[in-house]
């Protein structure tokens, strides 16, 4: 059956497809917030349809949006960029990711990737002909990207270091101290840094997010991506960006023009409203994710399940080795038998078949029900049923 064969992203899409068939499914898989886009942003989009529907937008994006992005990365990330030359607007974080990889890596170049990681990096790297050099991170260590391990992975072909913090799927946040050390390593070995800050507003407890481009010597060698998808519940709008040094960004602009020409004017106008308008909806949603994370962790603790503490992001990466089954099989059984969708770790990395990624992007009652069903599924699996 073709079901068994799917891997990586295809496996995830196969599970999403099956999940759709169940009316009572509880989705703890896809990284799509359950909240709809805040109403004032939708209203701004409608105004834009009336007044700006035919406005030309250059490949790098509308000047007003680039200004709003420059202000945002200064305010939140302490990165200084010139909106005229150092910001490129993209079709979501996904296009930003693809462009960053294409801009920096040529065939045969190596990128150091702490694993597990968001699978699109591997896919984009494959398109570019680059080589992924994995640095493993471990649940016992809360999935810390150990600078010593990164250093050990460097070869004369190394060209870039990928830093996704908070990480997807492991939900680890690179500590400020480690971030400084990692940047020092990048400088010492003359590596470019690709920084993915898409979850930067979701950092828990006392953990702290730091963008490498905010550090001395960081900006000139770092491309940083972000998007409105997760923080503003705007996944369907496809709006993201890259910021970086002007010289590299000029080349990113050419690539953006080559692969999609420009970004939809309505989404850009909505983006201006999102970034410059009231932020209370963002705070409300972030607070909800904090509560839900607690709820999920408490439930996993009650089940006696192990996980790396999610320091940030919107998910938990939980250890299911006690089932004795591959995560693909566990996810499949949870879905078919209990109608709960979680993502198998094997879809993120072949070495993570002992893990499941669960998002907390559902209302609390749904999460409680989902976790209850998951418990039943796990009991059935361990009882050999």
């Amino acid at each position, binding site marked *: 059956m073709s079901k068994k064969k799917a891997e990586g992203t295809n496996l995830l899409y196969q599970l999403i497809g099956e999940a759709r068939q169940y009316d009572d499914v509880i989705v703890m898989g896809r990284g799509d917030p359950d909240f709809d886009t805040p109403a004032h942003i939708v209203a701004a989009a409608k105004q834009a349809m009336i007044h700006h529907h035919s406005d030309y937008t250059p490949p790098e994006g509308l000047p007003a949006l680039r200004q709003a992005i420059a202000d945002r990365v200064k305010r939140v990330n302490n990165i200084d960029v010139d909106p005229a030359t150092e910001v490129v607007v993209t079709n979501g974080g996904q*296009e930003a990711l693809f462009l960053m990889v294409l801009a920096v890596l040529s065939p045969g170049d190596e990128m150091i990737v702490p694993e597990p990681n968001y699978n699109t990096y591997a896919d984009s790297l494959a398109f570019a002909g680059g080589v992924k050099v994995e640095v493993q991170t471990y649940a016992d260590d809360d999935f810390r990207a150990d600078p010593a391990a990164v250093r050990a992975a460097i070869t004369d072909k190394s*060209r870039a270091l990928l830093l996704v913090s908070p990480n997807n799927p492991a939900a680890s946040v690179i500590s400020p101290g480690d971030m400084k050390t990692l940047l020092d390593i990048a400088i010492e070995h003359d*590596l470019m840094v690709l920084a993915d800050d898409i979850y930067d507003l979701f950092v828990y407890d006392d953990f702290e997010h730091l963008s490498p481009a905010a550090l001395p010597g960081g900006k000139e060698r770092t491309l940083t991506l972000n998007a409105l998808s997760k923080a503003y519940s705007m996944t369907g709008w496809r709006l993201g960006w890259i910021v970086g040094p002007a010289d590299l960004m000029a080349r990113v602009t050419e690539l953006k023009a080559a692969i999609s020409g420009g970004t939809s004017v309505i989404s850009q106008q909505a983006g201006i409203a999102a970034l410059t308008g009231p932020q209370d909806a963002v705070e409300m949603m972030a607070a909800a994710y904090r509560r839900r994370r607690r709820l999920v962790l408490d439930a996993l603790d009650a089940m006696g399940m192990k996980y790396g503490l999610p320091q940030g992001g919107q998910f938990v990466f939980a250890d299911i080795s006690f089932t004795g089954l591959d995560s693909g099989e566990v996810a499949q059984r949870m879905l078919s038998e209990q109608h709960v969708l979680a993502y198998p770790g094997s879809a993120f990395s072949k070495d993570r078949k002992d893990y499941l990624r669960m998002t907390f992007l559902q209302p609390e009652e749904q999460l409680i029900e989902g976790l209850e069903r998951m418990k039943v599924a796990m009991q059935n699996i361990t009882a050999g049923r």
Partner: protein
Amino acid sequence: MASQTKADILAGHDANEALNTQLLPPVARRSRDLSADGLRSFLDERIIAASSEALEAGQTHYVDVPGIAPLRAAIANYLGASAGASYEAGNIIVTAGVQESRFLTIQMIGAEFESIAVPTVAHPGVRKALGVRERTVIPLAADVEGGYLPAVDAIAGALAAGCRLLYLESPARLSGAAYADEDAAAISRLLNEYDAMAIWDQGLAPWVDGKYNSLASFEESPSLVTSIGEAFPGMGLASWHIGYIAAPEAHVPAMQSQKQIMAICTSTAAQYAALEASAIFAEAHNRQLAHLSQLRSDLIELARAVNLEVIAGSAANVLALRASQDTIANLNQAGFEVADGALFGAPAVIRLSVSAAAADALQALR
């Protein structure tokens, strides 16, 4: 301390001439910008209502990678009705504009072939997309006499020499000239004979006054032709970036997977707008086409009056003229920007978007 790695990366980009090709805007940047082939047109309030209602109803989340099902069906229907091509909804991938369509087809279908034959005169976006990842390009001679459409003989030559993938525009993006049915039929026969494939940019086809047949219409169910274009042009959506790929079944998965990798999906606002546009396209488009055709005839008169040679074409939204560097300079001086044929590969030619401003531009040359 300057980074050698970065210097190497920058040098690599700078050496890539194709990637650095200058792109034309999809819509006019200002009123005297005549360089676009998309229209800065009126947006029907039904489209605004449909798109904003979808957003208000919560269509603000990720949707299917190849597009929302009703839009895929609407595009398939439209291609059948307007260009005689029998694609099904499952053959359609909705894209974030025609440049994404070019990129995905050229790079992903291109990856299955050793080389790709491309007209020496084509939209600059073609070269640009080719520059992202190096491909072997076989030039297909295209000259002004043929309206910049490569002759069937030239195509046959490329196929005979071993190339198995063609990139063709009809109408040609520079001149608006479209292949006659007998030529398209001949190209279709060649594809069958050589078991070759074609990427067929038919984005300007809605602007052909009269019957238009896609290359795909010569196949019962397209297995050799992938068609691309803007979705419902002229409906006020040019800046929303919404396009399509209509591909034989065997080629959908690779492009869909790459679309996922580079975009996840296309913006819902644009998709719901295009869906509504599909419903009202016929009525609005006919009026617009009649208007543009008239305007284009008037422009031809004006061009002749200032001794500019008109290059034959049948798409009502563009007009190509032979023009010296002096003429281009004069137009620029008068505040007009035109599409320089050199960007397409045809120096000493300009392309104007058919509009009232184009008449002003030609008047300014008097």
